[in-house]
């Protein structure tokens, strides 16, 4: 198959609204109504699932990272069994999907992508950002990760190895970034505010103290 499309022709594939989307909005409402009529799903199950997703956000990842920075034993548990470590902090990531936390070090920087679709640690971080689902990110994260990170403002030294992790339906990754310089005396809550969503994906690093809002 030849590659005929040019990303510039569809730069906003995730941001379209209006008439085109109305067709699909109408379709999913019809599907839901029929599934409820047939007793395949209940309205309550749909509502609970919406709530489940709304309750998830990058703040969960920030909590896990801040604890790992302050508690080496927790960090070991986070790296060996992410779901169990999340449960310790009241984050329910149960289900068939496996989670792997990958640790940034002075030698290795990790970056997460899903080239095939948009697999993401949703049970912990919520829905992925639009750019994560874009064709440009899915294509370029594996072929030129440094150029991608540069677009997010991160220039990595050439002696740092970049490890790109391609997620799947079965395995989702999250990055454990390095604690930024100047964050030595901070408590967990202050540390969590330094951890951005983008640093949990690996396109950037945590904020430095003084820059966090």
């Amino acid at each position: 198959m030849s590659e005929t499309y040019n990303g510039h022709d569809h730069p906003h594939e995730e941001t379209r609204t209006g008439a085109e989307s109305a067709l699909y909005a109408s379709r999913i409402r019809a599907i839901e109504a029929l599934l409820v009529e047939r007793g395949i799903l209940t309205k309550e199950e749909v509502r609970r699932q919406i709530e489940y997703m709304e309750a998830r956000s990058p703040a969960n990842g920030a909590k896990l990272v801040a604890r790992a920075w302050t508690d080496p034993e927790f960090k070991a548990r986070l790296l060996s069994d992410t779901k169990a470590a999340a449960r310790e902090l009241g984050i329910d990531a149960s289900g068939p999907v496996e989670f792997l936390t990958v640790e940034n070090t002075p030698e290795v920087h990790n970056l997460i992508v899903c080239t095939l679709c948009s697999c993401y640690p949703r049970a912990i971080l919520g829905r992925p950002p639009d750019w994560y689902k874009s064709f440009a990110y899915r294509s370029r994260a594996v072929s030129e990760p440094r150029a991608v990170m540069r677009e997010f403002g991160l220039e990595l030294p050439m002696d740092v190895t970049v490890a790109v992790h391609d997620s799947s339906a079965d395995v989702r990754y999250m990055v454990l970034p390095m604690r930024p310089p100047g964050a030595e005396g901070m408590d967990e809550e202050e540390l969590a505010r330094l951890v951005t969503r983008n640093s949990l994906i690996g396109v950037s690093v945590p904020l430095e103290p003084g820059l966090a809002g």
Partner: protein
Amino acid sequence: MASIHDLGGSPGARSSIEKSQHETEDWERLADAVTVALDKKGIKTTDEHRRAQESLKPELYKSLGYYERWVVATEILLVEKGILTHEEIDRKATELEEKWG
């Protein structure tokens, strides 16, 4: 030869990364919830959902938004499994539009 969904390293998607974020719409939340609720009930799987998306013609795959692809794939699987038909979804969609305008 790579299929349309297999974008890793694809030279066709070399544009810079658009970082703007759109506000999630209600129908997108619904598409997400219905799709995942069907997984949780064992009616379909994530792998099947991806396979259904991957079966779309390249032109369609490229032109659809993210949750539009989810809706299409969920419909494909429900029809494939004999749970719903395209025709009854058409009829219900028309009925709801007439009701809600």
